[in-house]
C-alpha cells in the first residue's frame, strides 16, 4: 500500500523540523539529584518536574536546536537504549514539551 503523497511529505517535513525553545521561553533549572530535575518557565510562570531523560533532552534543545534524529543520535551513547526505542522516546518527549510550551518544532 502506498501512502498518499501529502502524508509522505508531512512525515518527511516532521523529521526535518528543528526543535528549539520558543523565543519567549526562558528557563530556570534546579537539580538536587540526577533523577528529578525542576525547571521553571519564566514565560508561563509554570514549574515542571522532569525525569533525567526529559531534562537532558530539554537542556540539549536549549543549548542547540536540533531535529529529533539529531537528538536521538546525541543521546545514543549516554542512555543505553535501543535506537528505535530511543527515537520514539525523543519523539514523545518533544511532543510533550510542545504541549507544555517548553519547546516547539520549526521548519528547517
Amino acid at each position, binding site marked *: 500500500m502506498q501512502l498518499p503523497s501529502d502524508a509522505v511529505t508531512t512525515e518527511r517535513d516532521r523529521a526535518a523540523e528543528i526543535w528549539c525553545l520558543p523565543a519567549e521561553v526562558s528557563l530556570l533549572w534546579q537539580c538536587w539529584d540526577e533523577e528529578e530535575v525542576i525547571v*521553571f518557565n519564566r514565560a508561563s510562570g509554570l*514549574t515542571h518536574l522532569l525525569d533525567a531523560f526529559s531534562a537532558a533532552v530539554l537542556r540539549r534543545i536549549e543549548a542547540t536546536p536540533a531535529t529529533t534524529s539529531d537528538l536521538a543520535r546525541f543521546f545514543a551513547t549516554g542512555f543505553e537504549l535501543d535506537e528505535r526505542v530511543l527515537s520514539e522516546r525523543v519523539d514523545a518527549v518533544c511532543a510533550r514539551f510542545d504541549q507544555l510550551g517548553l519547546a516547539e518544532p520549526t521548519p528547517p
Partner: protein
Amino acid sequence: MNVGDLSLERFAAELADQGVAIRWGPFTSRIVSRLPELAAPIHLLYADFPIEPPGGICDFHVCLRPRSLRLPWSQRRFELLLDHGPTFQPFARKFALAALEWGLNSCVYGSAHRFLIVHAAVVERDGRALLLPGRPGAGKSTLCAALVIAGWRLLSDELALIDPQEGQIRALARPISLKNDAIEIIRGLAPDAVFGPPAVDTHKGTVAHMKPPSPSVRRAEDSAVPQWIVMPRFVADEALQLNAVSKANAFWGVADNSINYEILGEIGFTALVRLIDRCRCYTLTHAEVVDAVAALDRLSRQAEASKERHAAAV
C-alpha cells in the same frame, strides 16, 4: 501598650466604637466588633499583643457586625467585613471568634504577597525553624501546640511567611486553632494552657483557640532561619515514622501548600529553591503527638550536638 493593659470594660468599649488596632507580627489589624461577648475572648487570647495608637496606618480593617436587623438580637446572624467588604456567609454569633480568626488568616492569604506564604505551622528552637506544611487534617496545629508546650517558640500555627530576599521566616504568633479531639489532647498535655470559648458545630467540628505563649508574642520581631521541613501526616494506629525525603519531593510538598507560589512567579521559585536548599526534609507519620514531639526534639538536639562538635573541632 498591650491589649491586657486595658481593663476589659475599656477594651470592650473601644472594640465596639472605633475599634482596636492590634499588631501581630508584621501586620496591624483594626478590629471592630459589635458583639459584646467577643470582647472577653479577644482580651484574653490577645492580652500580650501590642496596641497601635489611634490614627496609625492599619494593614487590615476587620469588622464583625449584625445582619438580619429585623430579627430579634438573639436570632440575628453576623457578618465579617474585611477592608469594608463582606467575606464569608453570615454566621451564627456563637462562631464569631472562629470567624474572626479565619478572617485574619484570610487577610494574609489575600494580600501579603511580599512574602512567600505557605500553609504551615512554624516553631523555632536555638535559632532554627521547623516548618510543618500540610493540608487541613494533617495534624500540624496539634503538633505545633504540643511542640510549643515542649518549649519551642511559636512562629505560627497556620501560615509560614518566608521573606524572599533574606530567606528567613517572619514570626506571626497568634492563638493556636485546635479542632475536636486535639483540644482535649492539648489540655491533657498542658492543664494550665489558656483557651478561648470553644465553637461547637462549625464546618470543621468543634474549634477552640489556645492562647499563644507570652515569650513567643514578645519576640514577634525576631525572624528565624529555616532548618527543617517536616511534612506531617496523622494516621491512627500507625507506628511513628520520620523518613528523609528528596529535595525535589519536598519542593513539591511545600509548593502544593503555598498560597501564592504561582502568583510570585520567579520570586516564588527562587525563594522556594533557597528554602529547600537550606533545609533537611522529612515526612512524619504519627498516631501519638507525644511520640512525634519526641522525634522532633531529637532532631533539634542532634543539630545542637553537631554544632557543638563543629565548634570544638574549630
